[in-house]
C-alpha cells in the first residue's frame, strides 16, 4: 500500500506554478508585456496565436476553474438575471457573467483584443463569441468546420484550408505585422511533440493498476489545452510522463486495490470531482480513461509536421465532438478494449448538447459491441443546481453491485 504522500502526483505542483505564471502574465497590463490577448474556444487552432506572440485565453478553462472552485452557479444565476436561458451551456453563462462582474477565482479574465471561435466543438460558441465581440467591441474570427460524420471530404478540406489563410490574414491585420512562418513551423513542431507526449501520458493507464485516474487527467489537461505549441508544455509533459512511468515501476496507483477499471464519457462534473473520485474509489473502482482528455491528441494522425498550418484544417475539423455517433461509439469501443475496462460511465451533461445528445445510442452500441455494462448519470459540468447527489449515488451503488 502506497502512503497518501506517495499517491500524490508530484508534477501537480509544477502545473499549478505554470498556470499561475500564465494567468499572471495574461493579467499584467499590456503596456508592460507588449502582448495582445485573444480569447479562443477550447477546440480552436491556438498555434498561430503562439507564433504571433499573442496570449491565448480560454474561457472554457476558466469555466472549469470556476466550476472546481464552486463559483459557477452564482455566475450562471447572474447570466440568467441578464436574460440568458438556464438551458444555455454553463461555460457560456459563466463566462458572459464573469466578463460583466469580473467574477471567478481570479476576478475575471483579462480583456481580449480579439476573439477566435472555432465551431468544431458546438454551435453554442458561435453565439457566445458574437455576444463577447459586441460586449468588448473587438474583432472576431470564426473558423467554420463542417461536421464530418465518419470520413473527411475533399470539399471540406478545401473549404477549411481556405479559412486558415483567412485566419493568418486576420492575425496580421489585428497584430499589425506580417505572419512569421518560420516561427509557425517551430510552434507546430512543439505542438505535435506535446500532443504525442500527452497521448503517452494517457496511455500509461493501460498498465494495471493504472498510475493515475481520469480525475488526474482532467487536471493535467490544462496545459495541453492552453499551452500546446510552447516549450513549457513539452517540458511539463516530459516530467509528468517520467513520473507516471516511475509510478508504474513502483506499482503506485490512486485506487488500491484496483478492482474495477472504468471509462468516463463527457466533461467532468467540476464541482464534484472529489466526490466522484471518492465515491467510486470506495468501491475500488478507478477511471482509467475518458473520452474528454484524449480529445486534445485524438487527431494527431491527421497532422503533418512538415505542413502544420495546412494540415490544421483536417486535424481541427476531425476532432471527436465534430464527428458522428458511429465514430464516437467506435472510439469508446476501442477504449474499452485498449484499457481492458469493466464498465463505462456516461455523464449526460445538461450543458453540453453535442456531447450528450447521442449518448443513449452510443451506450447501446457500446453495450452491444463489447458487452460492457454502462451507466448513465445526469448532471452538469458547472451548474450545481442540475445535480442530485442522492439520485446519482443510488445509481453508482447499483451499477457497482451489478459489476
Amino acid at each position, binding site marked *: 500500500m502506497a502512503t497518501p504522500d506517495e499517491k500524490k502526483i508530484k508534477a501537480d505542483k509544477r502545473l499549478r506554478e505554470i498556470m499561475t505564471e500564465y494567468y499572471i502574465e495574461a493579467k499584467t497590463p499590456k503596456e508592460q508585456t507588449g502582448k495582445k490577448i485573444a480569447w479562443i474556444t477550447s477546440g480552436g487552432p491556438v498555434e498561430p496565436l503562439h507564433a504571433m506572440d499573442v496570449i491565448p485565453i480560454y474561457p472554457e478553462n476558466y469555466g472549469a476553474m470556476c466550476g472546481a472552485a464552486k463559483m459557477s452557479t452564482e455566475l450562471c444565476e447572474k447570466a440568467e438575471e441578464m436574460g440568458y436561458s438556464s438551458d444555455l451551456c454553463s461555460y457560456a453563462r459563466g463566462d458572459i457573467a464573469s466578463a460583466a462582474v469580473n467574477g471567478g477565482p481570479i476576478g475575471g479574465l483579462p480583456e481580449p483584443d480579439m476573439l477566435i471561435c472555432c465551431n468544431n466543438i458546438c454551435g453554442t460558441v458561435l453565439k457566445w463569441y458574437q455576444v463577447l465581440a459586441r460586449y468588448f467591441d473587438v474583432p472576431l474570427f470564426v473558423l467554420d468546420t463542417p461536421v464530418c460524420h465518419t470520413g473527411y471530404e475533399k470539399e471540406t478540406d478545401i473549404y477549411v484550408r481556405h479559412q486558415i489563410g483567412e485566419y493568418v490574414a486576420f492575425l496580421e491585420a489585428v497584430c499589425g505585422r506580417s505572419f512569421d512562418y518560420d516561427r509557425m513551423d517551430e510552434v507546430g513542431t512543439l505542438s505535435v511533440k506535446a500532443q504525442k507526449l500527452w497521448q503517452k501520458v494517457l496511455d500509461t493507464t493501460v498498465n494495471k493498476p493504472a498510475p493515475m485516474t481520469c480525475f488526474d487527467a482532467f487536471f493535467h489537461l490544462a496545459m495541453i489545452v492552453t499551452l500546446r505549441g510552447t516549450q513549457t508544455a513539452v517540458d511539463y509533459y516530459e516530467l509528468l510522463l517520467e513520473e507516471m512511468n516511475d509510478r508504474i515501476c513502483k506499482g503506485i496507483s490512486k485506487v488500491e486495490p484496483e478492482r474495477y477499471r472504468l471509462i468516463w464519457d463527457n466533461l467532468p462534473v467540476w464541482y464534484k470531482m472529489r466526490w466522484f473520485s471518492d465515491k467510486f474509489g470506495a468501491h475500488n473502482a478507478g477511471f482509467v480513461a475518458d473520452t474528454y482528455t484524449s480529445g486534445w491528441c485524438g487527431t494527431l494522425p491527421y497532422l503533418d509536421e512538415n505542413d502544420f498550418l495546412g494540415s490544421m484544417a483536417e486535424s481541427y475539423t476531425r476532432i471527436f465532438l465534430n464527428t458522428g455517433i458511429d465514430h464516437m461509439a467506435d472510439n469508446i469501443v476501442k477504449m474499452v478494449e485498449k484499457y481492458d475496462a469493466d464498465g463505462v460511465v456516461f455523464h*449526460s451533461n445538461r450543458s453540453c448538447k453535442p456531447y450528450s445528445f447521442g449518448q*443513449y445510442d452510443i451506450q*447501446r452500441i457500446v*453495450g452491444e459491441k463489447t458487452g460492457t*455494462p454502462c451507466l*448513465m448519470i*445526469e448532471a452538469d459540468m458547472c451548474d450545481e443546481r*442540475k445535480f*442530485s447527489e*442522492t*439520485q446519482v449515488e*443510488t*445509481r453508482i*451503488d*447499483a451499477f457497482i*453491485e*451489478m459489476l
Partner: protein
Amino acid sequence: MITAGIDIGSTTAKGAILKDGHIEAVTVMSTGYDPKGAAETVFQTLLEKAGLDRKDLEAVVSTGYGRKNVGFAGRSVTEITCHAAGARLLSPTAATIVDIGGQDSKVIVLDSTGKVADFTMNDKCAAGTGRFLEVMASALQIDLASLAEFSARADATVAISSVCTVFAESEVISLISKGEKRENIIAGIHAAIGSRIVSMAGRVKARPPYIMTGGVALNRGVVRVLEERFQSDVTVPELAQVNGAVGAALIAADRNG
C-alpha cells in the same frame, strides 16, 4: 436463519423478516420527516409481528433512499439489487421489474439467473413517479387511492403534453376549467406515466414477463396502461410494496449463508 430487510423510501418505510426463505412478517408505514425514527419503528413493528427479539436476527440489510440512515443494519444495498432479489422469491419468472415509488421510477431487467442485467431510472424530474400522481390527485381534489377507480370510468383519454410535474399540474387545472371530465383527465395522467415508463423500458430492452412493484403498483389504472403499452400482462405480486424489503432480507441471508 432469520434476517430482516428494511427499505426506507421517500414516502413509505417498509420492512420484512425472513426465516429460512419464508416470510415471517412484513410492514409498511409512512416515512415522514424522520427516516431514522421510521426505520426504528418499522423494525420494532416487524419484531412484534413475528414474535421475535432483536437478538434472534442474524443479519439486517437496509435499502432505499434512506438506506444509510439505518444504524442497526449490517450493510446497505441499493433498491435496484434488492428488487431483483425480492422478485426471485415473489415472482421467480419475472424478466423485467417496473418499480414506481414516491420520488423515482425504475425499470430493472433481469438475466436468466434473476440478477440485474441492466437498469434505468427517471432523471431528476418527478414526472412518472408517485409524487406526480400525488400532485395530480390533489389538483383534482380526489383521494390518491381512488385514481384507478376514476380512470376505469373514463370514456376518453385526454392528452397531457407537459412532462414537467409543475407544468402538468397547471395543464390539469386548465383542463378542469375547460370542463373536461375528471375521469378522462386521470386516464390521461396515467397514460403520461405509461409513456415515460415505456421509453425508459425501451432503453434497457425490457422484455416480458413483467412485474410491477412500489407504491404505484397499487394503482390498477397505471398497471392497465402499462399492459396496453407493453402488449403483455403486468403482474403485481401480492407483496409488491415490500418487494425491496424482502429482497434486502434475502440478501442479508445470502451473505451469511
